[in-house]
């Protein structure tokens, strides 16, 4: 049902970058559920209702991605705290960093997320004297040790 303009809720869009291990498969539904759970943990059911946080865009591949979260204007900090306090999602730790807030989805994608995602490539790197498979994104290198990953940069490769 469409409300008259002065009664429509006012929304803000939070643009955030995501980072996790390359093998983590966190889908959109799991991310949204974890966000709502974190807001509920910190602010209760009333906080969840006040924030009314919904994912508008979501992408995550090979350990990096972006998300745009819509929230009520008065509850931007509630949603920001929820994004920070999600903890591991489906066993995988996920880093969320809000890059900017805007009144429109397009505005915040263009302004804060555009060009942030560097292409990733799988390659073999020499880490601590041993050749290992790795996922390389710019200077950042996630080295696959077999049972776990190590977060490194090109400075660590020798």
């Amino acid at each position, binding site marked *: 049902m469409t409300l008259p303009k002065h009664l429509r809720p006012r929304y803000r869009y939070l643009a955030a970058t995501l980072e996790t291990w390359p093998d983590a498969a966190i889908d959109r539904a799991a991310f949204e559920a974890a966000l709502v759970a974190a807001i509920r*943990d910190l602010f209760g059911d009333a906080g969840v209702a006040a924030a009314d946080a919904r994912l508008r865009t979501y992408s995550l591949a090979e350990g990096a991605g972006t998300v745009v979260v819509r929230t009520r204007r008065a509850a931007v*900090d509630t949603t920001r705290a929820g*994004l*920070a306090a999600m*903890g591991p999602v489906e066993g995988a*730790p996920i880093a969320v*960093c809000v890059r900017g807030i805007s009144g429109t989805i397009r505005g915040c994608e263009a302004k804060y997320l555009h060009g942030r995602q560097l292409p990733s490539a799988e390659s073999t790197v020499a880490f601590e004297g041993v050749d290992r498979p790795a996922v390389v994104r710019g200077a950042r290198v996630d080295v696959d040790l077999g049972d776990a990953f190590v977060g490194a940069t090109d400075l660590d490769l020798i």
Partner: protein
Amino acid sequence: MYEAVRARPVGPSTVARLAATAADYGYAGVVVTNPPDAAVDAAVDAVGEACGIDVVDGLELTPADPSQAAGAVGHHRPTTTVLCLRGGTGALNRYAVRQPKLDVLTRPMAGRGDLDHVLVRAAAENGVRLAVDLGPVLRETGPSRSAAIAGLRKLRELIADADAPYIVTASPGSHLELRAPRELAAVAAVAGFDREAVERGLAEWGRLAARNRERLADGYVGPGVRVEEDA
């Protein structure tokens, strides 16, 4: 603003990755606070230069009791820029707040740890910074998260009452657990900390590092007094 981090071999991230991520999130520096038996062997200041961020060498002592702690503090103080001690028991907290050689008491409210107005006043007199550790609020769930928030609320009231020095950290164990200052401020608000208080606590790491570097430098005699070499 600075953040305290633990690097490989303690966690899965190298110092360089932590420094690069912290720089991306808007920090001016990181303090590497590994325990002494798992210290970072890389030259941390060279990493900092390459990443465009200040990387400070620190240690977090994790002794079992105060007598162990006393030996470790004496041993590591002369070579460590930022020296922290992990609290979390009554005896360790009592020891740490009365030890002016210490910079930071970390995790004072964790586990069976607790503080009261007497201990916080002692910390203020001895210049021992109390750690406002947001880590459990960020990463725990349910009752342990509630307990962590309750602990931080109490700590905030004690710190305000005694005007005690404090630092803020998310105690990240990897680059994926780092959070930007604004995110930390949003989370700390649930324990009653305002944004300025969080920023002050994050900046305190940098002030500590600058002060201690001066103290550890050659020719330091006392505050404002140093021996100058003849040119």
